[in-house]
Every structure is written in structure tokens, then in C-alpha cells.
């Protein structure tokens, strides 16, 4: 039995008491004997969940290089929260534990612009914790912000769910007890796409990497290099550029002179769009084969189907998976109904993160974070838009398939958004490293 099931009078007393005492005492993490009903105060518990509603803090880049993906994530979050509050059928299909609201409480949310900067993201989320008593925080497009938010979550004892984060470090050396990642990442992307590349492009190729200069870029580069060794692929050059580069000409001239056969472009967001367009201008695409190991939402729409035709990419979700997965169809229909466009993979990741969090809370029967974390760690299987998935308890990474796509020729497209053929849906189990291979130490529950 939890505090929420107790008789009315006691509940009212608890609510009044937590309002009086909450602000001043709770952040210091003191145990309050008066409320020691079942769990001690921890993080924003019980202040954040003592009313009729709970608050979720969302922080994503709405400006800058990663803004387009940030907006897509927001759409997914908002749709998921609406569905939770309405008790939508899709939520029930994902997990039979999900009913209306979360433990009967309405979910409210706030959105902040992280600008994809770690310090801005941490400030925004800290504000959600102190002012709104957020019971869950979510969102990121850059792994740099995801990793910083991880640390905040562990320190403040509030659960955090990255949005888009492709670095091995997020559930590797920078993993924390309080964070859970839905999306695919460097290692699974590389392991899924490498055999496809070797089979289709050939053996003993020379690679030119275009790498954004932070944890995401470096870990994707390492994993790709590692898994392409099997085909005898070697590195001709690695061009590292800062996040938010607008002119890639210097890097592209180096690539053009490197003698590489394949350009593996790890850049994300607007960096990916600009570097690919400019690579086309410099005659590199056409002479070398382009590969996108970690696909950016809206990439084909922005650079054009002609450039992406034939290009192999690894991704988390693509809307035509609705032909294969009934839940993808339901999700796409709901998304199209609300936003008049197809979801990208960020929106899907956001939606699933919220749904799986609600599922963990329902199973824990409390918002007390350690119990929610244990519910997550139990490896409970839920139905997702890409089939059955579950969290790995040892590093808090979702075991989920990686989607390998290939760009369609403009003439083969059946509609304006029909940019990719799904080449393969590679099951997640075989793609993941051993949980401790990247140095994950989860840390304490309390």
C-alpha cells in the first residue's frame, strides 16, 4: 500500500504537511519523521507527487544547430502526455499497466530551450526541480547535454530520460542510476550498419570521417572504425569540426585530398545538412560513397532525395515501419492527426520514453525514485513501435532494434515523405556490448 491509497483524511493531512514543509526542508534531503509513511523524502519525493498532478520537465534545444530535432522531440512528448492523461488506447497497447494518468494523477509539463548546451540544460532542469518539483526530467539532442543532465539527475535524485543521445558514454562511462536511455547509440548503430556496408560497398575501403567534436562524435567514430575492421576498412582521414560549424570547406578540401572511398558523416542536425550539401558542392559525393551511421531527423527532406538516394543510414525509427508494426501505425496515425505530418525518430523516442516511465511508475506503485528505478531495472518487456523492448538493468540502456535504411531514388518515392527503404530491422540483443565494457558504474539509489 502506498500513501496514495490511504484514507482521505490522512491524505489531506499529508498534502498540507508537505506543502508547509516541502520548500524549505526537502531539497536538503532530510528525512521527515512526520511523513515517514512508507518512504523517506528523496529528491522531489514526496513533494512532487503529493497533489492531484505531477510535473515533468522537458529540456530540448529549440534554437541552434539541433533545433529541428528538438521541436520533433517536443511533439512526441506532448502527444505522449496527452495520451497518458486521456488514457489513450495506444498507451494501453504499449503496456496493460497504463491507465488514465500516472497512478491516477494528471501529468503536467514545462518546456525549456537547452540550446544543446550542457550548462543551459542543467540550469533549466534545476529550475524544474526547485520550482515545479518535477518527478521526471527528460530531453536532449546532444549527448553533451545528456551526460550533464545524467549527473544532475544522480545528484538531485530525480529520474532523467535522455531524448536523442548517440554517445556510448551516456549509458557507458557516464551512466547513472537515475537515467534511462531509449534510443540507439554509437555501438549498436555501428554493429548494425557495418556488415551492410561491407556487403554492399565492398572490402578494404578507405574511410574519411566527418566527426563533430564531442562525446557523441568521438564514440560513433570509434565504434564504426572498430566494426568496419572486419571488412578490412581503414581510416584515410578524420576531420573533426566543432558543433555549429557553418562552413565545412576546409574539412571537405582535406577529405577531397585524402584518397578515401567512403565518407562517413557523423555530424548531426544542421551540421549534417550543411556538411552533406557542401560535400556535394565540392564534388565529394558522387566521387566517394556517403554513409550516415547515426541519421538526423529530417535529413533527406533538407538535403534532398537526390543526394540521399542510395545512401545507407542507421536510425531509431522510420515512419514506414507502420507496414510491419501495428503500434507504429497507431502512433503515426495519432501523430498525423495532431500535427499533420509524419513523426521523425526523435518524436518516437520521446513518446516511448514517457510511456515506459509511466509503466515503471505504475509497476512501482509509487513515485519514490528508488522503487521506480527498480521497476525499470526488472527488465519488464513492453510493446513498442518497433516490437518488444526492455531496459537492461546493468546499464539502463533499452534493448531495442536498430533500423538500417537506404535512400530511395526520387523516382521510386511513393509520396513526399517516402525517402527511405527499410533494409533491415536488426534485433538489439546481438548489437550491445557487455554492460560494463564502456565503464558503466551506476551509482547509488539514495
Amino acid at each position, binding site marked *: 500500500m502506498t500513501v496514495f491509497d490511504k484514507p482521505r483524511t490522512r491524505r489531506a493531512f499529508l498534502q498540507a504537511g508537505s506543502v508547509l514543509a516541502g520548500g524549505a526542508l526537502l531539497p536538503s534531503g532530510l528525512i521527515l519523521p512526520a511523513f515517514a509513511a512508507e518512504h523517506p523524502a528523496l529528491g522531489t519525493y514526496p513533494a512532487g507527487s503529493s497533489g492531484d498532478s505531477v510535473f515533468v520537465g522537458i529540456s530540448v534545444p529549440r534554437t541552434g544547430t539541433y533545433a529541428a530535432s528538438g521541436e520533433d522531440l517536443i511533439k512526441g512528448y506532448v502527444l505522449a502526455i496527452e495520451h497518458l492523461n486521456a488514457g489513450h488506447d495506444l498507451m494501453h497497447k504499449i503496456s496493460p499497466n497504463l491507465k488514465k494518468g500516472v497512478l491516477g494523477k494528471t501529468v503536467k509539463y514545462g518546456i525549456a530551450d537547452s540550446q544543446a548546451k550542457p550548462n543551459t540544460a542543467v540550469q533549466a532542469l534545476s529550475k524544474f526541480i526547485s520550482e515545479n518539483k518535477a518527478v521526471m526530467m527528460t530531453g536532449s539532442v546532444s549527448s553533451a547535454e545528456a551526460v550533464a543532465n545524467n549527473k544532475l539527475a544522480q545528484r538531485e535524485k530525480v529520474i532523467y530520460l535522455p531524448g536523442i543521445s548517440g554517445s556510448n558514454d551516456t549509458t557507458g562511462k557516464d551512466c547513472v542510476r537515475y537515467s534511462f536511455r531509449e534510443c540507439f547509440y554509437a555501438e549498436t548503430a555501428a554493429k548494425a550498419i557495418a556488415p551492410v556496408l561491407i556487403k554492399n560497398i565492398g572490402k578494404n575501403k578507405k574511410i574519411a570521417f566527418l566527426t563533430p567534436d564531442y562525446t557523441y562524435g568521438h564514440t560513433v567514430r570509434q565504434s564504426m572504425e572498430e566494426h568496419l575492421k572486419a571488412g578490412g576498412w581503414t581510416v584515410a582521414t578524420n576531420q573533426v569540426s*566543432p558543433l555549429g560549424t557553418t562552413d565545412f*570547406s576546409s574539412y571537405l578540401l582535406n577529405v577531397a585530398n585524402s584518397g578515401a572511398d567512403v565518407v562517413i558523416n557523423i555530424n548531426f542536425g544542421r551540421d549534417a545538412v550543411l556538411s552533406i550539401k557542401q560535400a556535394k558542392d565540392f*564534388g565529394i559525393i558522387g566521387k566517394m560513397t556517403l554513409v550516415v551511421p547515426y541519421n538526423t531527423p529530417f535529413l533527406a527532406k533538407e538535403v534532398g532525395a537526390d543526394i540521399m538516394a542510395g545512401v545507407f543510414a542507421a536510425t531509431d525509427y522510420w515512419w514506414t515501419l507502420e507496414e510491419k508494426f501495428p503500434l507504429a501505425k497507431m502512433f503515426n496515425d495519432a501523430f498525423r492527426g495532431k500535427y499533420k505530418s509524419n513523426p521523425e525518430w526523435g518524436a518516437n523516442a520521446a513518446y516511448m520514453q514517457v510511456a515506459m516511465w509511466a509503466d515503471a511508475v505504475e509497476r512501482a506503485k509509487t513515485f519514490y525514485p528508488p522503487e521506480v528505478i527498480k521497476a525499470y531495472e526488472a527488465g519488464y518487456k513492453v510493446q513498442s513501435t518497433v516490437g518488444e523492448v526492455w531496459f537492461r538493468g546493468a546499464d539502463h540502456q533499452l534493448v531495442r532494434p536498430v533500423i538500417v535504411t537506404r535512400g530511395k531514388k526520387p523516382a521510386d518515392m511513393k509520396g513526399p515523405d517516402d525517402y527511405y527503404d527499410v533494409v533491415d530491422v536488426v534485433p538489439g540483443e546481438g548489437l550491445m556490448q557487455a554492460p560494463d565494457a564502456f565503464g558503466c558504474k551506476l551509482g547509488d539509489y539514495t
Partner: protein
Amino acid sequence: MFNGLVLGALLALISSGLTIIYGTLGVLNLAHGAMFMIGGYAGYVAYQLSGSFLVAIAAGAIFMMFVGIVMERLIIRHFYSRPHEDQILVTFGLGIVYVETIRFFFGSLSKSVPAPSWATGITNLGFMIYPTYRLAVIGIVAIALLVLYLLLYRTKLGMIVRAGIEDAVMVGSLGINVYRVFMIVFGIGAMAAGFAGIVNVPVAPITPDIGEAILVEAFVVVVIGGVGSFPGAVLGGLIAGEILSITAMFDPSLSQAMLFAVMTLVLMLRPHGLLGSQGRS
């Protein structure tokens, strides 16, 4: 070396607009990056409607001149006699308003205009291959800078502008409406930003916040070249372009840092910039 020339040409054009406005009106225009961006979007819309790159360029420049004149009439002219901090705040605020307005109408996905057909493809320069449009940019910018130069140094308007910089009261007492001239100057500065904005679109697709990074680089260029000096902006732009591209050949991650290091060096040795004068009194 060569790549730096292309980078530098664009920077020179953007910075010249910034420096003309500052040199003449004494207003530090932090909305300049946003104006560069709006020029790009105006050109994009014109291209969507007409399909012509020339129309797009004309639209980007003329629309931005129009926005500049309206902006000067409604807001900026009330700030000529106010302290620099007020000018910085109001132009910074205007910049945010512009960026968010564009974001509201166009979203965050990037928009692009293809290079005109005569400038698509790649040119083999013998020592390297290079996108034809980027070569064309050098020519386009050179012509634009020449027009600006003639306007400022070889016309009566230019003479009044330069006299207005020296002594606005004296020019006014000669029966010339200085504020009208200031409006025109602001319009020309805005037009240079808008023109650069649309010329840059085929090189780098536009998003609402593309002006932010450009603004910072343009300021560095103005400081290196000498605040308020038109030839200084051109020289500064070319130097900055070379610094960025030469450093990138060795270690791309250091190129931005090197730009600021050179700016610091210039400020230490020549506090008024390479071609700057002793400043306004």
C-alpha cells in the same frame, strides 16, 4: 589560401554593412546577424515564387533595405543621442524579435536556394577542384563592394555621409537634412547585410539562427580592420578568412581561437584596428 579568399569575401561584405552603420551613425547594430538571415529568407521566398536566382538576390537586398529604413524611422533614430548601452540593448532585442518571427513563419528546418545554373558544378583550378558557385561569390561580392565604395567615396551622397561623420551639426547648418541621410545610410548598411544573406544561401542553407555566428565573426572583422572604416572591413574580412582557412588546414578546431587571438594581437598593437582612425569624438 584560396579557400580563405572566398570565406573572407563574404565576411568583408557583411562587415562593411556593420561598419558603415557604426561609422556614420555611431550605432552598434547587434541585429546585423538577424538582418543577414532575413535577407536570406526574403531571397528564398522570392526564389520560390519566381524560380530566378537574380530575382532572389534583388529581393533579398531590396527587402532588407526596406526593413532597415522602417527600423531606422521607427526605432533606431530615437537612440542616436542615447548611450551605447541603450543602442546595444535595442538592436540586440530587435535581433531576437527578427529571429523568432522568422522561426514562427518558417520553422527550424533549413531552407535552401540552389545556385544559378551558370554557376553550378565544380571548376578544376589545376591545383584543386572547387565549387563554381563559391568562385562566383568572389566576383559577386567584389562587384557589390565596388558599388558600395563608389557610393560612399565618389558621390555627393557619400560626401555628405562622410561629412556627417565628421561634424553632423555643421552639415545640418549647411541646410542638409542629416537625419534623412542617416536613414539612407542605415538602409544601405541593411541592404549589404541582406545581399550577403541571400548570396550565402546556396553555400549554406539558412535557418533562423544562422546570423548569430556570422555576427560574432563580423564584429571580429570590424575590430581587426578598424571600427568605422570601410576599407578596414574589406581588409579585415580577407584577413579573417585566411586565418580561418589556414588554421583549419593544420587543426580545424583551433581556427576560431586563432581568429580571436589575432584580434587580441591587433588590439594590443593598434588599438584602433589596422585601418582605423583615432575614433569619433
